[in-house]
């Protein structure tokens, strides 16, 4: 049965903070960085007003924020942090350690471009830098999705078949600072949904134990792991990440039961008969949807696919969503300097390569450093896709949208 919900006006940061308040994690360790600051400020207020039982650790850096979360999580706590851009980059070393040591930490990332030169606005270069680290990565389109992901992330992270950290990504400013109406659950329903933390089963010198630092059942975490076993442990992680595709579906179903909101890994829109389509992540997909509607009204068979899940990469869902579209544009706010294309493009193409009939694919890098991607520019992308269709060839595999020459 769908639980009682009410509508409140929240920006993305507030939605993240509010959901986290309802979850009441044991430890929150975070360091301020625009555009994530509202999360730490709100959460500090919740602590100051006694609305949560969490210990707030006002660390001296993001490196320490994630390190404290790793310690907390290993000690059995639910641990939360939030960051963006340079903060995420400073955490880079610990991202791999948190994932490698299988700590189900939840982190909000208000996506912001990486300096230099320094810039506080949105793109996905921060999140893409973390894509290989072993974190589950969800991308949100609006505050509602931020709220939902911020509640659900705990169940995903702690799922017996997963036990991996989860990163909830949402665009800096466009989501983090934009007030929207959000359906929120009651505290008790959130508590019930997330339940108590589940510990992974592992094995120490004295036999099977729960994976946590507990004086009654001592284990060692974070050993020196040399040539003989390291690869095996990495395969464990890779396989667990693969397996999480099934497990996340199950959590999504349960979440749907209480909220009525159906969560998918990818959201195809008007793809059934689409001849030109765009795939992408995040808030820009809202604008793309509007453009698709306009184009449809004009008789263009346009479509789009929004991805909510980026890690694990939902290969089958994406293939199904893309279907038989002959021309596909990847719109992404990221880059890989010197690479054959930006990350999403490379991955989408990899997925499509083995299809008997694969579409033409072109990469449209846009919005770096928060540059506006207007509906007009998106229309241009679709025009470019139509030209590819007419010509039957991709002349410019990677192009930049809205950049002055």
């Amino acid at each position, binding site marked *: 049965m769908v639980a009682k919900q009410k509508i409140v006006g929240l920006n993305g940061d507030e939605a993240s903070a509010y959901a986290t308040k309802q979850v009441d994690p*044991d*430890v929150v*360790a975070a360091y301020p960085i625009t555009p994530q600051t509202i999360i730490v400020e709100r959460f500090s207020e919740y602590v100051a007003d006694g609305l949560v*039982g*969490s*210990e707030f*650790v*006002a*660390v*001296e*850096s993001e*490196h*320490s*924020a994630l*390190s*404290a*979360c*790793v*310690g*907390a*999580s*290993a*000690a*059995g*706590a639910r*641990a939360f942090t939030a960051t963006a851009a340079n903060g995420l980059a400073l955490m880079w*070393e*610990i991202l791999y*350690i948190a994932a490698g*040591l299988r700590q189900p930490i939840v982190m909000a990332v208000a996506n912001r471009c990486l300096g230099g030169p320094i810039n506080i606005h949105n793109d996905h270069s921060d999140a893409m830098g973390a894509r290989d680290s072993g974190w589950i990565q969800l991308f949100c389109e609006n505050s509602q999705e931020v709220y939902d992901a911020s509640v659900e992330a705990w169940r995903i992270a702690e799922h017996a078949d997963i036990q991996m950290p989860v990163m909830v990504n949402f665009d800096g400013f466009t989501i983090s600072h934009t007030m929207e109406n959000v359906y929120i659950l009651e505290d008790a329903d959130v508590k019930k949904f997330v339940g*108590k*933390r589940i*510990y992974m089963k592992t094995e*120490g*010198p004295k036999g099977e134990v*729960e994976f*946590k*630092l*507990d*004086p*009654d059942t*001592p*284990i*060692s*975490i*974070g*050993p*020196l*792991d*040399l040539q*003989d*076993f390291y690869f095996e442990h990495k395969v464990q992680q890779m396989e667990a990440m693969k397996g999480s595709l099934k497990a996340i579906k199950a959590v999504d179903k349960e979440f749907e039961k209480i909220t009525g909101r159906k969560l998918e890994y990818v959201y195809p829109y008007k793809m059934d008969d689409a001849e030109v389509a765009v795939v992408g992540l995040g808030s820009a997909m809202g604008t793309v949807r509007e453009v698709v509607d306009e184009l449809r009204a004009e008789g263009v068979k346009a479509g789009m696919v929004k991805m909510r899940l980026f890690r694990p990469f939902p290969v089958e869902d994406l293939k199904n969503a893309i279907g038989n579209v002959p021309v596909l544009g990847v719109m992404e706010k990221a880059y890989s300097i010197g690479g054959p294309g930006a990350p999403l493009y490379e991955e989408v193409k990899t997925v499509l390569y083995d299809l008997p009939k694969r579409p033409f694919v072109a990469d449209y890098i846009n919005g770096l450093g928060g540059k506006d991607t207007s509906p007009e520019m998106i229309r241009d992308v679709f025009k470019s896709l139509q030209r590819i269709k007419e010509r039957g060839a991709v002349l410019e595999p990677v192009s930049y949208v809205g950049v002055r020459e």
Partner: protein
Amino acid sequence: MSEITLKEMSRKPDALICGGRLCAGCDETIVVRQVMKATRGPTIVTSATGCLEVSTSIFPYTSWEVPWMHCAFENVAALASGIEATIKAMHKKKEGPLAKYPTVDVISFAGDGGTYDIGLQALSGAIERGHDFTYVLIDNEAYMNTGIQRSGGTPFGASTTTSPAGKVILGKTETKKPIDEIIIAHGTPYVATINTAWPLDVMKKARKAIEVDGPTFLHSLAPCSRGWRFPPEKTVEIGRLATQTCVFPLFECRQEKGKPVYELSAPSLAIAKRPENKKPIEAYLEQQGRYRHFFRPARKEALLKELQESIDTRWQILCEKAGV
């Protein structure tokens, strides 16, 4: 909780057990064994990357009989902060796996590299935030695990692989950071220097550090036969000489009404009372290969004099602080 006497403590099982792979005669495990003897109950240990960590946790083996964690090189204090915050949160909420223990003590071990240099920020932050944990600096005065490179804790004149004694430059040209003063200046409730040559003193200070609320800091000088170049059986002897020459005096520092109160520990107090018992630094230096260039091919009188004077000055300042 057992009383700290050699007899009682000799019966207490080790938290760090046999089968580790540090060099024969390594002081690091002597420090850990002595400090861990003084625990009062459930304890969680964190280690920074370094000789101790890599040699006691080579997968699939572990030498730790208590919950132990290593995360990275520079963040052991942040890791401990998270663990300590968890203990607090679970006690407050009265739920979670650690809620059932009346106390859980957190002890962090880190080398000089992990403390003076790359880990200083995390340590400073953890102390400023007042986390209740005990930080044990195992100071062998260089990055031993990576092959004896100089650190901010390497003393003046010592030869390391990145401050080698050459034809022109004679070892490290900079002095050792005053780490104890840096930590005391944070208002740290309890700071003490420890030397494994005096096990009872080590264990008593460790117990105090564990019992004191808030962050506490134990600084051990840990002679390293490989890095300092002396025969392994001399480890404790050379450590003892460091204190007998006042290169590494033993003291405690508590905070009373916002003021640091210094107290010399017995081996150093004895020297303060009878200065004629203070040994010349040569007795300490000449046993170590890292100071060989002070004596060979020719004795560097000026250098020895300069070093002796700086040791004397620091010793005098400490005595003044301790009111002796």
